[in-house]
């Protein structure tokens, strides 16, 4: 099989000492970040974007992928021991995991979560190996109109599927698109929104926008509402599982990926929905219904497995289509742009070393995570005691380093602070941050594809919908947009009946 050969080559890349080191750094950083409150994987990758200036792409992406998977692992630790999820994907883990920890079964909850992540990540990554080359092959002929359609899909999905208010999502997207417009027009060199400033003519670097919105915005927002007395984690020993627990969990570990993987691949908000669906499924199928709410181990095992599998699904869309379905994927896409690499169907042909090295490193990372997390769980739990002033001062510090490293210009730091204040205001008034980031990253690219497509068709709008691929994507978009309406109609009919 072709994919298997490529994967073997990928292992050749991933198992070199230097790349092993990057994978190890990635999973360690990722776990720490997942455990630490206030820092999510998207912020972490954004803060680390400056390393792309000094590091080769393979090493950088191996590290970023390690952070993504590691943060999933670490997030559940906070949920279980503190009842405060380290990140959104781990909300469900708190529902059964925390009661388990309270009743003295914290070690078992941590083990069920860690093995769940391992199983989910493993199955998800195997699915990634099998599916990604096929998707890339199917999509290899796609041209400008298709790319434009995919980007419109990303815009619509991120504004209308996520978040509670479409208007606020759209407002956020438009803010992002506006920031993306600043600078020279890529096709004609026309100055746009530069107001005669030379610095603005280069555009606002994606790194600065991502760091400003994710890091500075978050630090300022937390500073305004800092909880004066952070919760105390429940002390816990080494994770382990008894035979009875394994018997109850193994089916949940295997069921999780079935739910998690497809949801990760579509733009539906990453791990939040699949972890919740997995929780509901496990509850329905459980033979120990009395335990639920008091600490049912299946309620930890299934959702955690689904969470890791969804990360693998996210990578399928990002690597084969260039479609980011989560905030982490969006920031990784920005990293690809920093290297001048366009993720998409051609990535598998043009950069086989990078893609397969990255995929192989996921397997390596998973083994490292399991090996590290089972014995190190009590150490990770100690991270929860870090004084909050240091944590958020550190975020500000590294954000400044990152923005300054972009071009060595003081003006970048000022722009960073301004974007951070915008991020603060967005959090205050419930504008989601992700659409703005997607707008900045994909906006300029979408405009270029749009103009290229219309150039080919000589200005006729039909040039945007003249391929089966683009028509399919637009059909999906219409469905997404009409979904609330359809739901309302169905509900009304049901109410009448």
């Amino acid at each position, binding site marked *: 099989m072709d994919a298997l050969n490529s994967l073997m080559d990928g292992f050749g890349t991933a198992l070199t000492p230097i790349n092993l080191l990057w994978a190890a750094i990635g999973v360690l950083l990722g776990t720490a970040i997942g455990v630490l409150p206030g820092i999510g994987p998207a912020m972490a990758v954004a803060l680390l974007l400056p390393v792309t200036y000094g590091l080769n792409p393979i090493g950088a992406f191996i590290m970023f992928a390690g952070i993504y998977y590691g943060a999933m692992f670490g997030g559940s630790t906070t949920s279980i021991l503190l009842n405060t999820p380290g990140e959104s994907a781990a909300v469900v883990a708190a529902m059964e995991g925390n009661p388990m920890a309270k009743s003295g079964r914290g070690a078992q909850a941590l083990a069920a979560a860690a093995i769940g992540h391992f199983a989910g990540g493993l199955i998800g990554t195997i699915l990634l190996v099998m599916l990604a080359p096929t998707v890339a092959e199917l999509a290899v002929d796609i041209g400008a109109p298709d790319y434009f359609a995919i980007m419109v899909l990303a815009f619509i999905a991120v504004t209308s599927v996520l978040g509670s208010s479409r208007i606020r999502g759209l407002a956020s997207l438009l803010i992002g698109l506006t920031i993306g417009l600043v600078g020279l027009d890529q096709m004609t060199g026309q100055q746009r929104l530069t107001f005669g400033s030379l610095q603005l003519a280069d555009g606002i670097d994606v790194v600065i926008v991502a760091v400003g919105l994710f890091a500075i915005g978050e630090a300022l927002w937390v500073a305004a509402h800092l909880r004066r007395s952070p919760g105390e984690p429940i002390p816990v020993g080494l994770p382990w599982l008894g035979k009875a627990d394994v018997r109850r969990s193994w089916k949940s570990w295997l069921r999780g990926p079935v739910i998690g993987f497809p949801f990760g691949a579509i733009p539906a908000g990453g791990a939040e929905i699949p972890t919740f669906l997995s929780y509901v499924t496990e509850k329905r199928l459980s033979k120990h219904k009395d335990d639920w709410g008091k600490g049912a181990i299946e309620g930890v095992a299934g959702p955690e497995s689904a969470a890791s599998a969804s990360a693998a699904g996210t990578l399928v869309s990002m690597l084969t289509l260039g479609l980011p379905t989560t905030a982490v994927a969006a920031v990784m896409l920005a990293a690809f742009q920093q290297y001048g690499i366009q993720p998409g169907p051609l990535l598998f042909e043009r950069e086989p070393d990078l893609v397969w090295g990255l995929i192989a490193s996921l397997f390596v990372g998973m083994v490292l995570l399991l090996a590290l997390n089972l014995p190190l769980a009590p150490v990770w739990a100690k991270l929860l005691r870090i004084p909050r002033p240091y944590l958020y001062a550190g975020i500000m510090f590294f954000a400044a380093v990152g923005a300054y490293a972009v071009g*060595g210009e003081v003006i970048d730091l000022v722009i960073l602070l301004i974007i951070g204040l915008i991020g603060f205001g967005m959090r205050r008034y419930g504008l989601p941050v992700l659409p703005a980031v997607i707008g900045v990253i994909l906006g300029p690219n979408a405009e270029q594809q749009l103009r290229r497509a219309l150039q080919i068709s000589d200005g006729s709008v039909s040039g945007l919908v003249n391929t089966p691929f683009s028509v399919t994507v637009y059909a999906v978009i219409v469905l997404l947009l009409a979904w609330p309406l359809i739901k309302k109609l169905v509900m009304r009919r049901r109410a009448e009946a």
Partner: protein
Amino acid sequence: MTTPPTEASPTPPTDERRSWLRDHSELGVCVLLLALGALVLGDALTMDVEITQRGPVGPKTVPIVVGIGLLVIAALLAVDVLRGGRGEAEGGEDVDLSEPADWRTVLLLAGVFLGAAVLIEPAGFPVAGALLFWGAAFALGSRRFDRDPLIAAVLSLFTYVIFNNLLGVPLPGGPLMGVL
């Protein structure tokens, strides 16, 4: 739909008006979106496209669409707010929304950050970075005068060495690095 927000009652007492404004502070977001939209549209319409346009869609088209979109969304958001819709403030594990926003800390943090930005070139990164960390930690309530500056200095120096010497991302050393 672009009607400006009307007052709740013709002559409200100042107290009532103030609380109405606080309740509807989200209208400020609409004003900002409106201003941004006007800015984008203004910039797009005053663009003189002398360069021969490649393709039927020029550099103006997308900015015009985005500008109009901003104006429309500002109006829609205003309607939503006046009808009682509220953007939900973002929660988080270290976020306590039950207390009012602590503006002093936010302003102090922004000030410390700007100060570091000003200092980074004359004083060098190790000094400016250390002051940024210490200042931010101080603003956030840390008062350990023995430990805080030490952590700040070590962190800043380490970061400088890692970026400047190991990753090849140049940071200004300043006079301090000249001495060492």
